[in-house]
């Protein structure tokens, strides 16, 4: 065997152990009626779990909630992150300090962020509803109308810094020459931004979007810490659905089937994003 293959063997073994085996086991699980409380009575059911999951209203609702969450959170984070990056790039003093402050939320564990906002927005003891009420605004942050939006806002608070970090690095790596040429040609700020900055930043935006979207699909902690998917199932996300099916109801076969469907959905999503974001070649 050539040395280059030998050198990657340890990594292949490692990845096989930590990724391939669980994936194949999940595939096998998804075809069984496998319950943790009936471990001696596992039965092959073919694609029955997939049939159930694909038509289960709770799963479809969780999928819808997750897509709404990902779309809203990532778009807001993209706009805010890019705006802040453009502002900070121009900042001449306290640059390091401002960066540190803005990046801080990213370093808090999400379950702690969930608990923190659970109390901050709590209608009985929360400081935010308390001061809002003083100016005559009464909002039920975790009521059926606002609960999913509140979860989006919490995600935006925590993960906009990630976008900021990516865009700041991207902006600082851009060559200066096109901007100088544009200035010489008399281009305004908006024209410079839309015709030079954005197109040149496109690869960074695509990578940031994909990383954030994939991460946002996994949203679980805020839901677990704050709403448990409620009221009703208005904030039930796909990860919470899978957790509940597998680890609360012990229906591992169905949970595995839901996970496989999620993987397929995410794969399609990533391929679409990558294809759509390729620059159009003008012939």
């Amino acid at each position, binding site marked *: 065997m050539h040395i280059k293959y030998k050198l990657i063997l340890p990594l292949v073994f490692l990845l096989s152990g930590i990724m391939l085996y669980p994936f194949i086991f999940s595939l096998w699980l998804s075809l069984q009626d496998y319950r943790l409380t009936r471990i001696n009575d596992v039965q092959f059911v073919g694609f029955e779990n997939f049939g159930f999951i694909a038509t289960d209203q709770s799963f479809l609702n969780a999928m819808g909630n997750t897509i709404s969450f990902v779309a809203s959170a990532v778009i807001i984070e993209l706009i805010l992150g890019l705006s802040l990056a453009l502002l900070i790039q121009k900042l001449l003093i306290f640059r390091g300090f401002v960066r540190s402050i803005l990046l801080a939320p990213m370093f808090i564990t999400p379950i702690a962020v969930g608990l923190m906002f659970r109390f901050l927005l709590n209608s*009985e003891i929360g400081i935010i509803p308390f001061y809002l009420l003083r100016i005559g605004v009464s909002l*039920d942050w*975790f009521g059926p109308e606002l609960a999913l939006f509140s979860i989006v806002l919490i995600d935006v608070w925590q993960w906009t810094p990630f976008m900021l970090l990516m865009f700041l690095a991207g902006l600082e790596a851009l060559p200066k020459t096109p901007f100088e040429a544009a200035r010489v040609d008399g281009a305004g700020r908006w024209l410079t931004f839309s015709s030079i900055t954005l197109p040149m930043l496109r690869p960074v935006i695509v990578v940031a979007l994909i990383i954030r979207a994939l991460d946002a699909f996994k949203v679980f902690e805020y839901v677990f810490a704050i709403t448990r998917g409620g*009221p*009703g*199932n208005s904030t039930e996300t796909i990860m919470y659905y899978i957790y509940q099916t597998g680890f609360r109801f012990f229906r591992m076969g169905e949970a595995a089937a839901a996970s496989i469907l999620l993987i397929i959905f995410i794969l399609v999503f990533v391929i679409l994003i990558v294809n759509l974001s390729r620059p159009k070649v003008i012939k």
Partner: protein
Amino acid sequence: MKKLKLSTAIAAIAWATISTSQVAHAGEINIIMEEVPDYDIVAKLTDQFTEQNPGITVNFDAMPFDAMRDKILTSSLAPSATYDVIIIDNPWTDEFARAGFLEPLDSLISSQDGYAYDDFVPALADISKVDGSIYGVPYYNYALGLIVRQDIFDSKGLAIPKTIEDYMSVVKSLTTNGMYGAAMQPQKGYKIMEEWKNWLYANGGELFDDAGNVIINNQAAIDALNQYIETHSQAAPPNSANWGFDEALRSVSSGKAATMLSYNWMLPALNAKGGMSGDLAGNFTLHEVPGGKSVLGLWSWGITANSDNKDDAWTFISWISSPEVAKQRAIMGGAPVRNSVMNSPEVWEKGYGKAYYTALADILDGSAPLSSGNNAEELIEIVGTELSAAVTGQKSVKEALDAAANGVERAIK
């Protein structure tokens, strides 16, 4: 190669150490507990047990409720149990017993001198019986009662409501000028199910009929849910659609709500001088829930079937749940489960007073478990989700209860 062998050996020793340290050795028992005030009492009492049984070391692993089910499951699926003694929430009993996770206790109980098993409140003891075998003995109850601000009721000349209609009328009349009649807990899942089921009982409803058919969408259930929604919209604080136990308790203890349906043992906590209620301490009283039949919750002591130390485990359980220690536990503030404890003048005097124990005995007398049977945890979550959807207007009452009935049918298969 030598280095590889050495590191492999170190890894193997480390793994072996980690693995074996989780399983109790002979003369040692591991107990999983929920971090609640009753656990603190048990931990204090256990010093006496250790003195009396120097050959048995008791290790507690206390944790929040959310972490317990997973830990018990993984321990029970392993060849040797991590936990020799577990506490079992009542919805888990059938599921764990049928899965073979629990050791039947019948012969141990019958051969234990002076244990007085019949002294346990029958409604509590029956929860741990599955297919004629006993899989647990009661640890503490969490039956629901009606907690009221007696000073408000007295000043307005209101009688304690005995029916759900009376309750609705009273709490609506109390909802004025920033005061709300009822701090309710319509949070999705367990909380709303636990609260609403009292309303279901008051309307003569149940989850299943005698033949085992699902009847959660019958007229009694529809009436109960309509009444619950009406009360929540007219007598509960605004923006409380996602409230659970903490929020409701805070609302009552801070004087913003006049009543709540809650665990009976919250009464002493609310009335404690210098406690959560501040100047309001002493103004709270406990009564049977309107309708007279309350939802019953119970934690039981059980022994895992794959424990290597079953004898020691039973020695501990039979000691901590014995009549003498049960009395001490109640005097220290634990929720009683034995009739002899609730009827003991010594407990009345040193505990929370005769009125509390008498009210508790009345509550337990007419109570029934939140849910029992296989997959009760799943059932509670399904129904609780649909109830929450109805309360928040996402579904009509009929749609929600029909969906709940379909979900329950599937869950119990």
